[in-house]
């Protein structure tokens, strides 16, 4: 893994007028935002605001009812999840999703799938090139495990990890796919406040080093406000506000969405 990733030809992820209805329920209504290279964007909102649906729409797990997703100038709306991954848009999941029966190292090694892809012939008759690639991805997997602070768990089966460690493993697994845009769905859920702070510090180092940009859904406000360059607030499927953490925190509508309106005297 090189120290810095190539930011030349870095691309923006643009979401324009995204809508998704399930029957009569409008889960996501006309959401637009942009993730530019080098940025960490926070996507927040009360429970049920449509944040995870938004993730599923962008990564192709759902097909949008209307609107578009563009990446690097090309229209990628509704492309299959594995195609999005090949374009460099990799996500983690809200409900922890890892490869449970494998060890931490094996999990992250598997995440290097795209980097280690080989032809059918090479699968059955591997040559020097395959061996070199295998050695490289093993080295890279070990480094990613270390980056996420899981070095002491390297060879432990994922099934014995604590809740917090599983969240870190999930991020490591996503990083292993060498994403350009890393999309994290509540990565700090289950971390205690010290762990969350440490996680935030790690996250801050990623743009420009391992990834180009990060889109993060998170309920831990301390973490989101500390790491994000801009924050997009969703409420009942719609975009309520967008701005720097300070702007958003001062926005009366955002406070109202989270805490409710002050009773009128």
């Amino acid at each position: 893994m090189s120290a810095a990733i190539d930011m030349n030809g870095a691309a923006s992820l643009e979401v324009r007028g995204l809508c998704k209805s399930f029957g009569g329920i409008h889960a996501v209504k006309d959401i637009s935002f942009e993730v530019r290279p080098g940025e960490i964007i926070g996507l927040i909102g009360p429970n049920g605001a449509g944040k995870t649906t938004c993730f599923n729409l962008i990564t192709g797990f759902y097909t949008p009812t209307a609107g578009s997703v563009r990446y690097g100038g090309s229209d990628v709306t509704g492309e299959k999840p594995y195609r999005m991954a090949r374009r460099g848009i990799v996500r983690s999941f809200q409900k922890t999703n890892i490869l449970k029966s494998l060890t931490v190292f094996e999990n992250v090694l598997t995440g290097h799938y795209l980097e280690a892809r080989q032809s059918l012939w090479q699968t059955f008759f591997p040559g020097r090139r395959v061996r070199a690639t295998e050695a490289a991805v093993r080295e890279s997997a070990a480094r990613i495990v270390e980056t996420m602070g899981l070095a002491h768990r390297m060879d432990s089966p994922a099934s014995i990890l604590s809740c917090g460690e599983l969240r870190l493993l999930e991020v490591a697994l996503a990083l292993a796919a060498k994403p350009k845009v890393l999309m994290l769905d509540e990565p700090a859920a289950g971390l205690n406040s010290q762990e969350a702070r440490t996680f935030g510090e790690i996250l801050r180092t990623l743009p420009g080093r391992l990834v180009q940009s990060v889109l993060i859904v998170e309920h831990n406000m301390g973490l989101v406000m500390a790491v994000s360059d801009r924050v997009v607030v969703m409420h009942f499927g719609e975009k309520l506000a967008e701005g720097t953490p300070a702007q958003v925190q001062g926005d009366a509508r955002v406070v109202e969405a989270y805490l409710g309106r002050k009773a009128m005297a």
Partner: protein
Amino acid sequence: MKFERNCLFAFLALAALVPFAVRDQYVLHIAIMVLFYAVLATSLNLVVGYVGEFSLGHTAFLGTGAYAAAILSTQYGWPMWLTIPVAGLLSALVGALIGAITLRLQGPFFVIVTLSFAEVLRLVADNWIGLTNGPMGIAGVPQPGVLAEAGNLASKQFYYAVAWGLLALALYLSWRFVHSNAGRAAVAIRENRYVAQSIGVRPLTYSMLALVLGALLSGMAGGFYAHYISFVGPEMFRFAFMVSMIIMVLVGGKGTLVGPLIGALLVTFLEEYLREAKELRLSIFGLAVIAIVLFLPQGLMGFAGRRRERRNPAPAAATGPATPPAPKVAHHASGRTA
């Protein structure tokens, strides 16, 4: 990985010694069947153990291979060294066709549809009398020319060598598949389809590769069987073969390469040993499968794997339950980032 490789080499080496030690034709016959079933169980395990989809239609490939070899040799006079590979390739083709339809389904749906494909092929074999000779089957599949002068024992030894070669090929291809990036992708699909897709794996590609590889191997095994038994009938497609294969994979341990070999060895000998028990035999096997699913879901190899872990405790496992792991993360992580 080393342990597994050594086990496979040991199995093949021991198997290579058998024909020198055994002079009894009956025992040699059983040894041939062990190798034959080991190929079948290995091929089924690629789908069941690594992609994690339970195929009940694996006899479709076995039967296709057997019929292909029987028809090519009786009607077109092809020699055995040609019919077995061609039988494998034809089965692989059938595997690709069936896979293209069935692998879009998962779980119980996949199980039922694969089962129905095997049934359909059995009906075809039963009724397309012009090609398959219907329920009468194809008798007198020719033996290779070199056996014309040879005695019974020598021909058994010859077939044993062929079966050994097939098993070696099956293990080589499976080993390469399992320990490659493709094998890791297959395991990712088995463990978690969502994760697999989000790291860029197209699930159909690798479930298809495993199924076609499995079909190739069981088709070759079928071709071998046709020549060895010298008779092929519609019962090749029957559920009995399927049951044997499933028991072998489950008993030995699915998702390991050594498991199906152990399963094949145990079950083939047990089937012979329990021959006196007649119908009761199947009930005994049924109980054995229930017991294994309940108490040993990883099979015998899972047991070996667990024991191995205890002998070689990982650094984390040694301190694991005693100290709460959560603060350790923070400590390590902050140590790195400070």
